[in-house]
């Protein structure tokens, strides 16, 4: 047994830092993904079950009540199923993002402080933040891909370009996820903040982001909620790709810029908070 001290002592040796500095974020992501295995069955069941249930209930069930076509803005119209599907796809990404950005952060700092263990090894606060974001994406992207496949089965995607909706929805989930992380990484004690985020942040967002009806049907004094909602931007992007919703080109660009901007800001803040919190 050569536990320790077996390698010769060399002062000023920096070779051990090379790989951790380069790949640390990926090590963290791998660790987190291994942890996900403990609830793998739930992950699979929900990522397959959700699209089936929601597309059937809304696209087929509710659509039988809403039997009119929804305008595409170009004089034509699409079925309610086609209209609602990109929104449900983006919402699915947001739901997963909300799961992965709340409790795992609280866990890593407090309930099962694995972040402290990572930091005692050569991993930095920035890398821990990055790794958690990567792991979140590892859940979001397949969830979106499966959702999209079910949408195809339901015949809810008229255009081939619609497949890019997997990416735009993932981006939407990413943007919201990192913004949530930038907050949850600060929480010292769970006084119900995370339940609050779900109940008063995420759920209302679904209702005011043009998910089930076009944003323009809301009174103008409520439409601003949609404009700041990343979900609305992601949903509209998905609609442009799926059935060529007509909107000014600047607006389509604005959707992307807004989501990317939120992502950059959210990641940066999360990195700072995690780094500061570990360095006590």
């Amino acid at each position, binding site marked *: 047994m050569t*536990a320790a*001290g077996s390698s010769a002592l060399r002062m000023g040796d920096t070779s051990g830092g090379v790989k951790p500095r380069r790949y640390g974020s990926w090590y963290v992501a791998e660790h987190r993904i*291994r942890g996900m295995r403990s609830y793998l069955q739930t992950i699979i069941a929900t990522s397959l079950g959700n699209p089936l249930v929601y597309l059937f209930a809304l696209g087929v069930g509710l659509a039988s009540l809403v039997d009119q076509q929804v305008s595409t803005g170009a004089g034509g119209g699409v079925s309610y199923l086609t209209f609602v599907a990109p929104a449900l796809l983006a919402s699915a990404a947001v739901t997963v993002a909300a799961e992965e950005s709340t409790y795992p952060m609280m866990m890593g700092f407090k309930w099962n*402080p*694995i972040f402290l263990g990572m930091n005692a090894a*050569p991993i930095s606060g920035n890398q821990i933040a990055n790794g958690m974001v990567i792991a979140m994406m590892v859940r979001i992207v397949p969830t979106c891909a499966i959702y999209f496949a079910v949408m195809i089965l339901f015949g809810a995607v008229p255009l081939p370009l619609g497949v890019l909706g997997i990416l735009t929805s993932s981006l939407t989930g990413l943007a919201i996820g990192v913004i949530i992380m930038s907050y949850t990484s600060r929480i010292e004690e769970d006084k119900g903040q995370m339940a609050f985020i779900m109940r008063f942040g995420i759920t209302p967002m679904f209702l005011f982001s043009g998910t089930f009806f076009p944003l323009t049907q809301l009174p103008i004094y409520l439409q601003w909620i949609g404009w700041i909602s990343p979900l609305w931007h992601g949903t509209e992007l998905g609609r442009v790709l799926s059935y060529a919703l007509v909107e000014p080109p600047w607006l389509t660009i604005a959707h992307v810029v807004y989501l990317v901007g939120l992502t950059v800001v959210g990641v940066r803040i999360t990195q700072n908070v995690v780094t500061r919190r570990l360095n006590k």
Partner: protein
Amino acid sequence: MPVPVITASSLTKRYKDFAAVDGLSFEVAPGESFGLLGPNGAGKSTTMRMVGAVSTRTSGELSILGLDPNSHGPEIRSQLGVVPQQDNLDMELRVRDNLIVYGCYFGIPRAVIAKKADELLEFAQLSDRAKSKVDDLSGGMKRRLTIARALVNEPKILLLDEPTTGLDPQARHILWDRLFRLKEQGTTLVLTTHYMDEAEQLCDRIVVVDKGTIMAEGSPASLIRDHSSREVLEVRFGSDRNAEVAEKITGAGERIEVLPDRILIYSADGEAELVKLTEAGLNPITSLVRRSSLEDVFLRLTGRSLVE
């Protein structure tokens, strides 16, 4: 003395107005077993975090393995093993997977970690629990797993923060045995403790820390020799009578400490002191003659007990 693996001079950590660590200076030689002894809140854990290159010092100089933690944190941490006060094993992973995942953080190739994990499980006497959930382990087993995890990168220095706090006596002895083996193999150990028996068992050299500063330094034996008598007579007269009796025996021994529940009489010959007491007609309810320990050194230096 060979080049020290840890050099701290005027090491200080302040939180706003409060100095958790206030100008500590010490050196640790390779292969040495070095202890920071002090009560809760003395600044031991903060010192350990700075030495562990996770907490930035406010001022002073610190060099770990020839590197400055401010600029080479990951490089230093890649050569350390850390056993924190609170276990932070991953409860979602199984016992062996905890070692595997941790090894990855050092960039160790997978095949090497797998082999290492089995060796370490054996060392920690956990081979038969490799596939158990961490939650199902006892406190002592979790602690041993944490130590095994800290050894996955073959560290030059092993940092142990209160390694046996909260463990039952048997679990402590198993753990001490494992740590003693590491010491025999030449691993540098740095540990904090508020148990004097632990410090006596494991440390070659100790600094006694209180309120962020060093009160005394030396080997357990020399600290006792320099700061206490050879023996101690402990007598109890009942909590309401202790103070009253203490006034009558002010001249006894070399020194007297009056604690709420007992009186300590420091002397080279404890039995002789007891005889003097009984001759004076003072019959204690219980009496005990024992050798001086680090607890007595601490009491002498700070006027306070280690475990409060």
